[in-house]
């Protein structure tokens, strides 16, 4: 509004000095003026974002937990054609870069997003496009797999957002304090997800406090079972009990973007949800409701030595498509055919039925692609 008020005044002043021809001179200054204003605005927004990020980081170090607060920007994001934007971004990043320019571009990317270039499997000038570089493999031995047969390993490079134990039929995962989403919405209504017991999600932060009450509760139910039926008691003590756990890992743009198998397991089903492609950054998790449940994702379900296993890979605006190495023909982030995203997921049962595809611990399963 300041610019709108100022501009006619300066044009009029110039007209009075030059004695005419005010329109043409005004138009000549309009474009550079608008460009400068836009650049200033973008610079200010970037500075504000850096400042906000720093504040978030400082607060997290002090142990402050952010609460869910939907805002106008989140509502505005819903109106943007994010899937189209994502595909255009994918197209642009797939453009071949001249060989002499490649190392400069990739070094700049690595500096901006803190990637370790020494881990790249190939020399930088061999990655034809930013997209190729982004989904690069790593040098042999860069990611040793934990040899303990009783360990479950991380499937990705990233930051741990949440983890804990799930309880009850309607088990929920906390997106951020004040808002949770149900596991069955994330994995699909037809999921093989086992229902464990009554109760709520047991977050990592409350584990210690709830441990004693949990033990107390199990003692009580044990007492009740003992009185009720000795046969039931025998069954319970003979079967090892299984809990249902979860872990949410966020991948920053500079992270290695391939997904590996966390354990030896058999993948029985693949489910593809063609949803939105909202950004998945820290701010988005605080302001967009059902972020992980609404975004496009691929869910792999199956069995391992200890029971059920599911890996959900969730796309974002910049990293919109997911490539499955066990099913190369799968295409995600396709142009939208329907106006609404609420249709059922596309499901594929791997053959032979009941056995599916066997994966070894640490084996490459999928990759996130740009756009």
């Amino acid at each position, binding site marked *: 509004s300041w610019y709108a008020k100022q501009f006619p005044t300066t044009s009029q002043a110039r007209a009075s000095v030059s004695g005419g021809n005010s329109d043409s001179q005004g138009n000549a200054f309009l474009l550079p003026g608008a460009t400068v204003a836009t650049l200033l605005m973008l610079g200010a927004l970037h500075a504000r974002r850096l400042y906000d990020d720093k504040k978030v980081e400082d607060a997290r170090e002090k142990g402050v937990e952010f609460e869910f607060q939907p805002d106008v920007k989140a509502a505005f994001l819903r109106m943007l054609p994010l899937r189209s934007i994502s595909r255009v971004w994918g197209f642009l990043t797939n453009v071949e870069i001249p060989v002499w320019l490649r190392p400069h571009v990739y070094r700049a990317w690595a500096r901006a997003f803190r990637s370790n270039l020494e881990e790249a499997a190939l020399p930088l000038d061999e990655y034809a496009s930013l997209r190729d570089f982004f989904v690069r493999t790593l040098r042999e031995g860069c990611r040793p797999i934990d040899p*303990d047969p009783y*360990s479950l390993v*991380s499937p990705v490079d990233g930051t741990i957002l949440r*983890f804990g134990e799930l309880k009850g039929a309607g088990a929920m*995962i906390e997106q951020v304090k004040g808002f949770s989403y149900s596991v069955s919405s994330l994995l699909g209504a037809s999921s093989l997800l086992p229902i464990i017991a009554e109760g709520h999600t047991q977050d990592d932060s409350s584990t210690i406090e709830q441990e004693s009450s949990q033990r107390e509760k199990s003692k009580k139910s044990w007492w009740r079972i003992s009185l009720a039926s000795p046969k039931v008691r025998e069954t319970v003590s003979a079967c090892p009990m299984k809990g249902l756990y*979860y872990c949410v890992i966020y991948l920053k743009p500079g992270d290695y973007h391939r997904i590996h198998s966390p354990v030896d397991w058999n993948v029985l089903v693949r489910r593809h949800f063609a949803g939105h492609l909202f950004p998945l950054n820290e701010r988005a998790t605080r302001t967009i409701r059902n972020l*992980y449940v609404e975004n496009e994702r691929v869910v792999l379900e199956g069995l391992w030595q200890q029971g059920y296993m599911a890996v959900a*890979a969730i796309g974002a605006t910049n990293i919109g498509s997911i490539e499955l190495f066990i099913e190369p023909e799968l295409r995600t982030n396709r142009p939208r055919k329907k106006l609404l995203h609420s249709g059922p997921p596309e499901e594929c049962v791997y053959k032979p039925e009941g056995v599916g595809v066997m994966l070894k611990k640490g084996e490459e399963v999928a990759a996130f692609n740009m756009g």
Partner: protein
Amino acid sequence: STVVLVFQAPTLKSPKNSNASEFRFSIRRGDRIRVGEAMGRWHDS
């Protein structure tokens, strides 16, 4: 992008066998983790 892992693992000890192991995460919220690093462990009884 984000990856969510949901899995079954051994949990609370059964009343008869107090040595039975439960799964324990070896991570904390906000930790940086890399492919192949252990997220949690359990022990066979």
